[in-house]
């Protein structure tokens, strides 16, 4: 017989609404004057009017020597060279693919900046141009690196390493780009049996564990064998753990994900979507982080 889950409204946990928060230092909102001193340089999130420097977004003022910036809490993804991103092919054009990367404009992936199957390095012929849709077609997901930023802010990507390329079976998850911590590596093989790619653009890819020696083929040989049930559960649990962290605005990197995963083992995967269970998991993580001083 089907069971019905009934909860009180109070269990959804709106308690943090009542208490007043103390305001953080150096907080500005749009239109605020940051300084009237003309000796400073205008950075992101600011504009100059009547010789005064104003903020244009809500956030904390950051000063590096003479440069003043204001960083908002969340924005679209601002690309930087060398970032790992995950994107979806939305168009096949002349010698290039258009890729959606949660950025202000669609990114481009040039035919000349992908590894062709077989890994041979040669000039791209017309033959290759005709086969473009054969390599990557609309709707495919790829992992790539930002190669260059063009004048209008459009990103140019490349996948010229075997760790990048088309993504096979797994789960995509989209969170705010500001929650992803910049680290040396964004590819993690987690001990729980799944691997994870944390795209700097806020897209996270969770897939069954890959064998780094044999499976890094740039994604041209796809493994379409059914994923066993226990691996699927691990992937789903990781997804819900990351969602829980993102809901509570916690920074996401390999350690915090593993903490969340381990804290979530007390609950079933399905229960993790409930707000009250989520906040319980977050409490556990915060306690553990304080204890270990990370």
């Amino acid at each position, binding site marked *: 017989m089907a069971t019905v889950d009934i909860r009180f409204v109070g269990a959804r946990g709106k308690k*943090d609404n009542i208490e*007043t*928060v*103390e*305001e*953080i230092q150096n*907080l500005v*909102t*749009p*239109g*605020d004057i940051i300084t009237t001193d003309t000796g400073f340089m205008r950075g992101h*999130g600011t*504009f100059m*009017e009547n010789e005064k420097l*104003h903020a*244009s*977004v*809500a*956030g*904390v003022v950051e000063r590096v020597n003479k440069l003043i910036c204001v960083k*908002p*809490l*969340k*924005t*679209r993804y601002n690309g930087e060279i060398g970032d790992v991103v995950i994107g979806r092919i939305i168009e096949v054009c002349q010698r290039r693919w258009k890729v*959606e990367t949660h950025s*202000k*404009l*669609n990114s481009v992936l040039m035919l000349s900046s992908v590894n062709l199957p077989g890994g041979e390095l040669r000039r791209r012929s017309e033959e290759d141009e005709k086969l473009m849709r054969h390599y990557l077609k609309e709707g495919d997901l790829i992992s790539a690196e930002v190669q260059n930023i063009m004048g*209008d*802010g459009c990103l140019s990507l490349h996948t010229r390493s075997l760790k990048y390329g088309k993504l096979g079976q797994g789960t995509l998850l989209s969170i705010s780009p500001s929650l992803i911590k910049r680290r040396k590596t964004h590819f993690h093989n987690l001990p729980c049996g799944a691997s994870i790619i944390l795209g700097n653009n806020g897209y996270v890819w969770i897939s069954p564990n890959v064998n780094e020696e044999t499976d890094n083929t740039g994604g041209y040989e796809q493994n379409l064998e059914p994923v066993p049930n226990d691996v699927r559960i691990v992937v789903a649990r990781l997804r819900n753990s990351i969602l829980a962290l993102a809901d*509570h*605005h*916690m*920074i996401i990197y390999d350690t*915090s994900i593993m903490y969340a995963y381990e804290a979530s083992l007390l609950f079933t995967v399905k229960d993790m979507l409930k707000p009250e269970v989520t906040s319980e998991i977050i409490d556990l*993580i*915060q306690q553990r*982080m304080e204890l270990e001083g990370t």
Partner: protein
Amino acid sequence: MAGLELLSDQGFRIDGRRSHELRKIQCRLGVFKQADGSAYIEQGNTKVLAAVYGPHEVKGSRAKMLQDKVLVNCQYSMATFSTGERKRRPRGDRKSTEMTMHLKQTFDAAIITNLYPRSQIDIYVEVLQSDGGNYCASVNAATLALIDAGIPLKDYVCACSAGFVNDTPIVDISYLEESGGGPELIVTILPKSEQIVFLEQNSRLHEDNLSKVLDVASKGCKDIYAILDRAVRDHVSKVSNVANTTE
């Protein structure tokens, strides 16, 4: 005004406010997860939701794309259950189309548009309950949503309406006061520089009284600004406090 006294001899309005008092304002930022920015505002019984998407690639026809600045796209809709009498359709009628254009003009002026050439910002506004001052509540909600989305603005954009009854200007008029047929002035300003972004007047008002009513409306805008600013500061502080403790 048959039988309806908008301003009593003691100086009280129908809902018990004095002539210079706003309705109660409550607002929240970040109400949707999927949108880049979102906000909800209640001004008295007028309730409005706003969602902002973008800046993103221009959707639809590429002919609309602007080479030097961002395209601001607005959509104003009123829920069918928002008014006393059920509406036939939520958008597409003359009134909503006009409102959409007004919103577009307002935010074209306030967003720093030259930062994002060849892209588009979508602002969706939905009126859930309408009790006068729909445009004002929509502008205020959209401002909060834009700030939540981290889109650069020259300043907050605050809108407020004012009426004129018994030689007294009244601020933030409700549906009852609006429908009486008296003069109504809707003002949108950038509160810090006091520049007027948008001004609309319905019905006739004597020229001598215009500046009086305009002053009251601008004062109302600045009061609204104080409330919105408080809400933004609380929201930003709360979120960054959490982020800081876990880093």
